[in-house]
């Protein structure tokens, strides 16, 4: 991958130019489908865009010193990391990529969570600190399963290169691993029943309590980009390899949409769990899943 294709992927497709409208669209689909399940009309199509523009136009509170600088930097870092993660997705076949880009993608997907944890602590708000602590506990819990599932896919197919993974024929192990990843995504995206860190009304707004105006707009955007990146990762790994690139891209879009709808149904149908229940769920119930996955991946590797 040379510099031009890398920049084109980061800035145009599937990077910022595609991902930002997609992020708003996903956020709208989530809110609208929850509204329709509750038999109401719900927000207009452009709602996330209006929210973003409005937040950009608000006067931010004055911040000084190193804390103020950090509070402005965290949301930008989160947006950059999420956009980079989207840019790495191998949506188009033969789009380049490099050996080990799966590891970079995982690191970039983790960065927004780490930014949120740091943001809550550097805001100095009590509710921010509670939210950050919850986010940290949640990250440690679901990431075991999330990372083991992805590593087991990569290990069973002998490559850490996303494009190669997307093109290899899928094994039953991969679908099992995708199921494990799907279980982790609600926690990663902070939607019900795992909306613990930003638990609205319960601990004000969690780590983002002190953020306002353009900073909050960046947080909203990074949240939307996280949606695109995680849903896109599942979609790329699940889509069978097709030689017609436009057909592949269409399947990718449809599958992403279906996953967003599935997550919205889950969010609308459940209530928020307590933190200890959530941790127990990930450490006791889904860890078995992860152990089965990684051991069968190693077994496949030894046998082949």
């Amino acid at each position: 991958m040379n510099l031009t294709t890398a920049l084109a992927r980061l800035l145009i497709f599937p990077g910022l130019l595609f991902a930002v409208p997609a992020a708003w669209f996903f956020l709208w689909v989530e809110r609208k489908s929850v509204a329709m399940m509750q038999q109401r009309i719900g927000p207009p199509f452009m709602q996330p865009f209006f929210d973003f523009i409005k937040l950009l136009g608000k006067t931010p509170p004055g911040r000084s010193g190193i804390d103020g600088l950090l509070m402005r930097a965290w949301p930008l870092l989160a947006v950059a990391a999420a956009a980079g993660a989207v840019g790495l997705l191998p949506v188009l076949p033969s789009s380049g990529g490099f050996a080990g880009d799966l590891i970079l993608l995982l690191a970039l997907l983790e960065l927004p969570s780490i930014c949120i944890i740091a943001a809550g602590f550097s805001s100095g708000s009590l509710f921010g600190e509670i939210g950050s602590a919850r986010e940290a506990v949640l990250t440690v819990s679901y990431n075991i399963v999330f990372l083991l599932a992805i590593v087991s896919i990569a290990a069973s197919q002998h490559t850490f290169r996303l494009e190669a993974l997307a093109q290899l024929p899928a094994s039953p192990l991969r679908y099992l691993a995708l199921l494990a990843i799907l279980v982790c995504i609600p926690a990663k995206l902070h939607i019900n029943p795992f909306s613990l860190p930003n638990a609205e009304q319960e601990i004000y707004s969690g780590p983002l309590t002190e953020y306002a105006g353009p900073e909050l707009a960046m947080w909203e955007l990074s949240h939307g980009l996280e949606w695109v990146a995680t849903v896109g990762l599942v979609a790329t790994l699940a889509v069978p390899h097709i030689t017609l690139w436009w057909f592949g891209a269409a399947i990718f879009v449809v599958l992403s949409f279906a996953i967003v709808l599935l997550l919205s149904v889950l969010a609308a149908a459940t209530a928020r769990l307590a933190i200890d229940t959530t941790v127990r769920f990930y450490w006791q119930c889904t860890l078995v899943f992860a152990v089965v996955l990684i051991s069968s991946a190693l077994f496949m590797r030894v046998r082949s």
Partner: protein
Amino acid sequence: MNLWNRLMCYSRRHSPWLFHMNTGSCNGCDIELVASLTPRYDAEQLGVRLEGSPRHADILCITGPVTRTSVQAVRTVYGQVCGPKAVVAIGSCPATTNVFIDSRVLAGPLNRHVPVDVFVPGCPPRPDAILQGVAKAAEILAERGNHPLADQEKQP
């Protein structure tokens, strides 16, 4: 007005985020405000979102007759909301202190402490009335955004 300002004005009108504050209300207006956000009245059509933090909000919804102990809290929360902002006083209590008038524990009505843009009278007001008040406040907010100095002039 150039294109960006027009877009900003439109966005402000279509995305009012609320922060709900109780200053000693009997809870009657509070449940009516919550009712206006429920599926039956569906405030989300107007882009309304109930926010947990005053930092995120555009419109401050205040209920209650403003007791002496809550005056400082009202001022603090009003200061925390980033401009442009609007205040909606829900119910008769913040407008006139209602049946609690002349009580020694009150420091109301509300407009002695913060500038109020929309009064929604009623004891309690109906959810439709609250939604109308919020929509009106969103229009005021959108206009105010183009004249940022108007905020400071109104300070009591």
